[in-house]
């Protein structure tokens, strides 16, 4: 069997992580703002600085960061549990989500000591929200072709260019941007660097973009001769590609990639229990539970590799691709199931939720890298390229 597939052996969440789960559930019972299913199904797109602050008071933002920087210093298994419980309840977590998941760990790994002291405590206190500045209008899947450029000047760097699809940019304090610091787009991976950009600096403009569901989660961000000080560079100049690749393993490895439609599934099951209509759909429900159980085990396996200190880039891509297929299948299946008989009334909240998820589900296999790009990565991991 291939090296890659032999990584997929069952791993277990340790008992401490399971014990932590009951704390999280109790917190959510007390603090989760009440909302109908279609609102909760926004899950990690739902923004509430107040909710993030409450989590931070518990020490649950920057959960895996070291204590000396304000973190809880728990392992990725505990984070898996926290993330899982937040997602299945549909908590509005997007304010701190990206900083907790990838910006914080990135600064810890590649940042200078001064940068760690400057940003990590603020992340853990839910006072610094981050966004991801990778995509550009002409650099989507072909990320190495980014054209936004930082030029060395006397006081630091001058940044010019434009990012797009930046989730949450209007609410964020900082962006970690992948930009070109030397060479041209033809140089591909060479000459790319990452900067921490303070979005309040002169020359930064953020323009929200509305999506087909009526929300404005992502944005365009323009940089017009933005002056950055030297300490905005994170890691080494020219190491941007290597850093961004490691960051993407964090982005792709979490349970986000299996739970995007879970509020809908739970709501449907609740409706079926009330209507005693369950028998007709038990095979469908069973199949979805079977897939969820398996994907969850796959995701825990990837988490266990993170805990071991590995960077499971290809494993995370594999779980993300099959996970997003599951997430996308749920609204498609439920649309057909609940409209299978026009004589049976559809719960109005269920109707809105399935509509929202059907509309937005194409994004599940785009955000964080498209299906086609991930399959190419898996093929490379299998030695085909």
């Amino acid at each position, binding site marked *: 069997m291939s090296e890659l597939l032999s990584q997929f052996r069952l791993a277990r969440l340790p008992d401490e992580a399971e014990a932590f789960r009951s704390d999280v559930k109790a917190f959510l019972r007390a603090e989760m703002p009440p909302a109908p299913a279609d609102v909760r199904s926004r899950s990690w797109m739902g923004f509430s600085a107040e909710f993030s602050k409450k989590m931070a008071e518990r020490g649950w933002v920057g959960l895996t960061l070291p204590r000396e920087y304000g973190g809880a210093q728990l392992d990725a298994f505990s984070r898996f549990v926290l993330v899982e419980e937040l997602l299945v309840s549909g908590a509005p977590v997007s304010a701190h989500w990206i900083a907790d998941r990838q910006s914080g760990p990135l600064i810890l790994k590649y940042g200078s000591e001064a940068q760690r002291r400057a940003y990590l405590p603020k992340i853990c206190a839910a006072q610094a929200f981050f966004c991801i500045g990778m995509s550009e209008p002409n650099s989507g899947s072909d990320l190495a072709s980014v054209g936004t450029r930082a030029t060395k000047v006397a006081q630091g760097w001058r940044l010019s260019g434009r990012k797009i699809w930046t989730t949450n940019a209007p609410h964020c304090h900082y962006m970690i941007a992948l930009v070109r610091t030397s060479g041209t787009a033809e140089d591909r991976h060479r000459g790319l660097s990452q900067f921490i950009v303070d979005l309040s600096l002169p020359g930064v403009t953020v323009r929200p973009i509305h999506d087909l569901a009526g929300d404005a989660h992502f944005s365009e961000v323009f940089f017009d001769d933005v002056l950055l000080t030297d300490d905005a560079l994170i890691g080494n100049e020219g190491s941007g590609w290597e850093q961004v690749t490691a960051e993407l393993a964090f982005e792709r490895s979490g349970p986000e990639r299996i739970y995007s439609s879970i509020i809908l599934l739970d709501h449907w099951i609740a409706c079926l229990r009330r209507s005693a209509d369950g028998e007709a759909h038990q095979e469908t429900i069973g199949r979805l*539970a079977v897939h969820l159980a398996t994907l969850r085990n796959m995701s825990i396996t990837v988490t266990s590799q993170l805990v071991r200190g590995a960077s499971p880039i290809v494993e995370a891509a594999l779980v993300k691709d099959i996970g997003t297929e599951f997430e996308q299948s749920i609204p498609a299946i439920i649309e057909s199931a609940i409209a299978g008989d026009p004589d049976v009334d559809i719960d109005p909240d269920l109707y809105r939720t399935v509509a929202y998820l059907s509309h937005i589900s194409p994004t599940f296999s785009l955000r964080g890298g498209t299906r086609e790009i991930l399959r190419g990565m898996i093929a490379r991991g299998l030695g085909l390229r």
Partner: protein
Amino acid sequence: MFAEALEDILKDVSAPAAVRSIEAGQSPALLWAAIADAGFLELLASEENGGAGLALPDLYPVLTMLGAHAVPVPFAQTAAARVLLTPDQVPTGMLTFAPVVRRLANGSISCPLVPFGLIADHVLAQEEDRLYLLPAKDAVCEPTGVHGSLTATLSWRGDSGVAAAAAPGVIATFGAAIHSALIAGGMQRVFGMTLQYANDRAQFGKSIGKFQAIQHQISVAAEHVAASSIAAESAFQGVGPVPELLAAAIAKSRTSEAVPLVASIAHAVHGAIGVTEEYDLQLYTRRLHEWRMSHGAESYWNRVVGRAVIASDTSLVSDFVRTACASRPAFA
């Protein structure tokens, strides 16, 4: 440890040529003797009964090995019977499990589509809380007529079997779990062959694995093989001697659903050579389809799981999948 030792034996005695000859009607006696003489039949028997007392998690790699070698004898079932029968009830020879028992009006018993029904010496069948050990020599045996298959329907006039007590559903659960592991092992082999072939076979001046359309198909197959492996492994996690019902249900469903997809991608990548008698791929893909249907396909087990989800008192399906399989022993 046991898996490696068994593999050393299987490499010789269950090589593709041996599998082909047994499928063609040759006696499996040599192959069976090699496994039995090495003591493998007693893997699951308790240590006080002279067995290895193997725990379920350690059984999993042994069973995938059987799948990966297309082993054409009911070794898994014979070994598993050691935890269902007392030592004095255990017969000598090859034993297999009947997926179901039908009691006909005239009192006779019929067991449709018994895996290895053509060659087994005994069939262990379950009716509610009774196990029946039925001697194959007394049965009317009807082959399925499927090319190369050892599955058969067996019928007995009257109660010709010895009975023992057992918790309801044990055979179905154990049979499903065993077949999920066979599928996982068979799929891993099929996947390995496909990957190798994609690198070796050249068309248009390069290996076909360099074409993106082929890469994507193989990547999708890899995802389903990984999912099936983890699902099958999770059926073998309990501390008891027998897999748990919901874990086995999930395992059999997930692996069975992946069968047509993985098998069809493997054949697509192989082109015409894959369906030839002389090429080994077909030894595995024919079995994958048979195993998918043995002891119930995903359509059956999904209903079992779905019924449990709807009946459960959790409002979150994530809680169900986390706790249902982990903490509910099927047979106390």
